[in-house]
């Protein structure tokens, strides 16, 4: 097991390096002279030269990239052009809203997705199955930001159950916190569960055709036991894969929902940085998100081996 985990870990290192090269190159070849952006409009050529010298923008591409990697490995994500502050310092207060949103959405969408998917597989071919699958397709086709708009209109503007926008941190009380995140959590969970539900259903149906399921039924195992004990575990692998993929989708969803609901998280930070063309922040956030997602994939790879002990590479 440890050998397998170590192998999976080593395999993800080149991906992290590649992600770093892509991120750094993107911003390096992008337009705009960083020294000019930092110095402002009235800088003289001498000042620009001094900034370049000071921050090392006049060094060669590989040297700058190496330096960037070195700092990154030491947890230094660089300095914002706009506020001139350390990016790590700017990110820290933004973590709580995004992580809380992410945690709630992953838990809720997994529960809804697996339950409805198993229900649809159990009742395959019936009206319940068809209706659930229609909902799942709708969930894929509905633009999240539009669904968010509709829910704000219904539940906040017209019914007044929730604030239109605004975020309460956990420090203000857990209930208040959950209440302020309720609509964004629901919107993202519903959309993410659609995918999980579809995959759970098809994976379950595939497994249910296996001979050992027939054997289990023949020896008189209850339908409940056939579903939960015999069929679910083998179908958990594609389900785990799609949960991983939906976490990647959440990163996109959060950029939109945090903007609509005015939640001061990482997604909102990225949109602000893009509007201000604050390239170091864009670079840092791309890198952080990609590393988190590579980490998620690593965890899922390890889960595979736990779910199916035959998996050893």
């Amino acid at each position: 097991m440890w050998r397998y985990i170590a192998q999976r870990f080593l395999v993800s290192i080149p991906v992290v390096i590649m992600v770093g090269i892509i991120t750094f190159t993107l911003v390096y070849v992008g337009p705009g002279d960083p020294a000019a952006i930092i110095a402002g409009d009235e800088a003289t050529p001498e000042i620009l030269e001094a900034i370049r010298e000071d921050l090392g923008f006049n060094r060669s591409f590989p040297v700058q990239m190496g330096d960037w990697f070195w700092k990154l490995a030491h947890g230094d994500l660089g300095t914002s052009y706009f506020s001139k502050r350390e990016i790590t310092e700017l990110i820290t207060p933004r973590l709580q809203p995004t992580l809380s949103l992410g945690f709630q959405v992953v838990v809720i969408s997994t529960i809804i997705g697996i339950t409805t998917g198993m229900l649809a597989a159990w009742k395959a071919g019936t009206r319940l199955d068809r209706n659930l699958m229609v909902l799942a397709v709708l969930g894929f086709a509905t633009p999240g930001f539009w669904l968010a708009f509709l829910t704000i209109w219904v539940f906040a503007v017209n019914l007044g159950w929730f604030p239109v926008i605004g975020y309460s941190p956990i420090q203000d009380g857990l209930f208040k916190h959950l209440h302020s995140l309720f609509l964004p959590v629901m919107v993202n969970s519903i959309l993410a569960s659609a995918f999980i539900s579809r995959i759970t259903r098809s994976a379950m149906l595939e497994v249910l055709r296996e001979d050992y399921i027939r054997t289990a039924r023949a020896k008189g195992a209850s339908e409940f036991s056939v579903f939960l004990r015999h069929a679910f575990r083998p179908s958990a692998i594609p389900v785990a894969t799609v949960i991983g993929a939906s976490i990647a989708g959440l990163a996109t969803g959060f950029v939109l929902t945090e903007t609509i609901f005015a939640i001061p998280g990482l997604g909102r930070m990225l949109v602000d940085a893009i509007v201000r063309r604050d390239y170091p922040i864009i670079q840092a956030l791309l890198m952080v998100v990609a590393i988190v997602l590579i980490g998620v994939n690593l965890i899922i790879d390890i889960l595979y081996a736990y779910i199916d002990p035959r998996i050893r590479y």
Partner: protein
Amino acid sequence: MSLAAEQRSEWELAPPLSTRLRGMFGSTYKAAKRDSVLAASIIVLLVGLFLAIFGPTLARTDYERTDPINRMQAPSSDHWFGTDNWGRDVFDRTIVGTRLSFLVGFSVTIISTVIGVGVALVISYFKLLDSIMMRFVDGLLAFPTILLALALISLIGPSVGNVIIALSVTATASKIRLVRGAVLSLRDSTYVDAARAVGVPVPRILLRHVLPNIVSIIIVQATFTLASAILAEASLSFLGAGVPEYVPSWGNIIATGQGYIQVGFHISFFPGLFLMITVLAVVLIGDSVRDHLDPKLRGRLKTTAQQ
């Protein structure tokens, strides 16, 4: 039989791509006659295409013209979808916005499919190139699509062409990964070995033997790309990071209404509905095509029904 003749008869076993495609469209037509959902989806897509081509001529007012006296009007017989914060007709802007969604959607799908399939076919036969390219693809696919597209657009500037480029990058990378996997799994099949044994050159093996067998995967994936690209363009324009503001797009019309949610619900509602129905139609067509083209899956559905 001479070797040349044998070779020819061997090729004839695999019908040319054009015949296969014609067969596919013919059977899609037959399937649509039986399947009302598929028929409805195809009609939606055709109406969308019609609006995309003739939208600006169909618009009843000048969709750019502002009319401050009639701003924020609710839907009425004059303005079916109401008017926005500048008094512009939302129906006309939504109809015109169809063009952009379809333009971006189809461009991204065609670009990513052509480049993706081409690159995948080539690298699957060159080990070194393959391992370099795949590391690059892995790196690109580690970023969520919209995040990478946002970053790219912030660097190269917001314009219709740049949105297409930014969205094509990830779409191409995922095509390369998918098609390469399919090609590698076919590379060791008996008929490819046979073709190689009789001396068919590699490019010919790829085009005449491998490609026709992965066409169904490519088509199904293309519908998925189309749906995601249309959604992604709307998301980018909604964030104000997609096409410039003066180009009507479903995404930026929704963004306008978002700012006036108390009084301007109609501004966002209708373009969002158009967006959802379009994506839904594309997804449903993709589902039908997959069920139809994949005989294994068809069998599976039958067994499911029997259970």
